[in-house]
């Protein structure tokens, strides 16, 4: 086990977290509260992986930004190593922001195109006083490029991002993240834009950092197959309209999904195996339309689409997360069990 891992201490905790925005509808419409996240709770221990999956707009990025201290929750609590960062004195807050880093989806937009790789990676090194002079910086940058497998490093260090492929850019973004010795990385669709031929190698690199440096990950993706590969020993949380519908150990969620939404997602995914994918049984939705956040249904937010809804119950009351088996939580009045398809 690597020195950095103290297996049971929580790195980050979110408790009953709510995020809402005030939005104005129409030109003279009045301001309304738009609730993006509702009652989100989870705990991540050192060296753990939590994957957040769900469809576009369900709130994955917002959860990531709250966890990384980029946006402040409306209510509820966030604790980093037991302390609420938003009540910390300024220098401690800065320290927290250093320990928590976010890798974004788009490797094309997140790197400044006119800087050299050396400039991109050395800037935070100087800013955080990790190096004293050019010579030290150069050495450290080379070491980091080596760590993310951009070798021979002398070929890369003086290039511009536009001279690199998408996979190489994402490696540079990861190397930049590592300059500040992060403990907790929020990877927001960090490999989704990458081509299949290079996607797996970046995922493997991120796993290696977990082994070598004991990094804790919040891994945001809409791709359940990648979530399963990356977070095999970790946990998954399935989100829908700002809520966690189901959460549990990764393989348990994949093999024994209990929430109708998780089951539909798994049954819908095409698989890179002709026999398997063609013999899959697809569970049908009641409706194809996702409700708008402006006009959420009463009761379970999934009931207008849920094939298993119980009339008179699911359209009246909202279920809450219940522990169905150790570590496996489901928010549903009619949970299922066993593998899908």
């Amino acid at each position, binding site marked *: 086990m690597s020195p950095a891992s103290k297996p049971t201490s929580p790195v980050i905790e979110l408790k009953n977290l709510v995020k809402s925005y005030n939005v104005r509808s129409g030109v003279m419409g009045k301001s309304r509260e738009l609730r993006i996240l509702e009652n989100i709770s989870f705990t991540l221990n050192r060296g753990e992986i939590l994957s957040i999956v769900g*469809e*576009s707009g369900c709130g994955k990025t917002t959860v990531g930004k709250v966890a990384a201290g980029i946006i402040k929750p409306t209510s509820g609590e966030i604790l980093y190593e037991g302390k609420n960062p938003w009540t910390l004195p300024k220098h401690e807050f800065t320290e927290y922001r250093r320990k928590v880093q976010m890798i974004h989806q788009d490797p094309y937009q997140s790197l400044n195109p006119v800087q050299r790789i050396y400039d991109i990676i050395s800037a935070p090194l100087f800013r955080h006083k990790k190096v004293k002079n050019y010579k030290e910086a150069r050495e450290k940058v080379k070491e980091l490029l080596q760590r993310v497998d951009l070798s021979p490093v002398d070929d890369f260090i003086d290039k511009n991002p536009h001279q690199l*492929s*998408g*996979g*190489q850019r994402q490696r540079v973004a990861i190397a930049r993240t590592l300059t500040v010795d992060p403990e907790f990385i929020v990877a927001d669709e960090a490999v989704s834009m990458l*081509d*299949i*031929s*290079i*996607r*797996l*190698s970046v995922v*493997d690199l991120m796993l290696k950092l977990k082994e070598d440096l004991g990094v804790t990950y919040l891994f945001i993706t*809409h791709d*359940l*197959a*990648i979530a*399963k*590969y990356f977070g*095999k020993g970790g946990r998954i949380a399935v989100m829908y309209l700002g809520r966690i519908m189901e959460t549990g150990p990764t393989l348990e969620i*994949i093999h024994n999904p209990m929430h109708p939404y998780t089951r*539909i*997602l*798994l049954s*819908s*995914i*095409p*698989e*890179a*195996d*002709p026999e*398997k*994918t*063609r013999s899959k049984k*697809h569970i049908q*939705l009641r409706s*194809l*339309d*996702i409700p708008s956040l402006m006009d959420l249904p009463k009761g379970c937010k999934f009931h207008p689409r849920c094939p298993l809804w119980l009339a008179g119950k699911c359209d009246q009351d909202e279920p809450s997360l219940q522990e169905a088996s150790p570590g496996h939580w489901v928010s549903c009045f009619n949970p299922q069990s066993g593998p899908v*398809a």
Partner: protein
Amino acid sequence: MARGEKVLTVEKLSIDYISRRGPVQAVRNVSFDLYAGENLCIIGESGSGKTTMGMSLVKLSPPSAVIKKGTILYTLGGKEYDVRSMSEAQLRAFRWKEVAMVFQGALNAFNPVIRIKKQFLDTGWAHNMKDNKEILRRSEELLRFVQLDPKRVLNSYQHELSGGMKQRVLIAMSLLLNPKILIMDECTSALDILTQRTIINLLKKIKEEMGIAFIFVSHDLSLAAELADRIVTIYAGRVVEMGTTEDIFKNAVHPYTRGLIKATPTVTGNEEGLTSIKGTPPDLIRLPAGCKFNPRCEFPTTQCYQEEPELVSIGKDHYVACLKADQSRD
């Protein structure tokens, strides 16, 4: 599946883009056939030339693209269409009516200030459908077929529709003139799982009920596994392997095809044997000598650095371009 008539022959097609650094060899000596009612998937990584090839099939390439050589010949309803020698007027009548296409990024191609209804009418008018009632009747029928509410959709502007709805509208529109072939380029990659599933099922239904042949361009192997009858793998603008879906997934021979399959995790499968392909995509302006895959190939021989392999038959309907094709089979 019983094979239909041959409807398209592409032979030795090569396309360059003019660029300041030199010609970008986006499509190199590509040959394949398409049969009536089949789904042919073109797979390959980003930048391998899939879109360039797709656009040329209906002569919609951008001005900087130069077709250097090759044949694109359709045989539809007893008539032959040699796309490269057709005039603009002939092409306008041909596109949509014989071959329709939904291109990459087409979700943003709607005119934002006119209603969907008008866009259906425009498409009909452009193809000599004179009777507005008839165009609208057909549009409504097709919108219902793609599981949309025709009344609501026809009166909408594009921004009032979700990505999945827009994609279905585009598919409905592409069917307006009863084409025999549909070319679709990355038509589901921007969509969510559940929307993607709806589109996949819809494409299957179109193929089964309307007998339309598909050229389906994607970098996503799982879509090919689900939809394709045959699969073409391209690497650096060239066909490196072609075969039935079963052969490609079970008996792939080219190290690149094998690499792609090994690099794709599945939800139900196990992770054993999953490995990434090393190296990076080639620069299409300065291609390496010999086999273009040699910098990323696991076991290249000296010959691989000198000679570019031809696409050769290695079994019924199975073709591969690899100098070690004989040895790399299981």
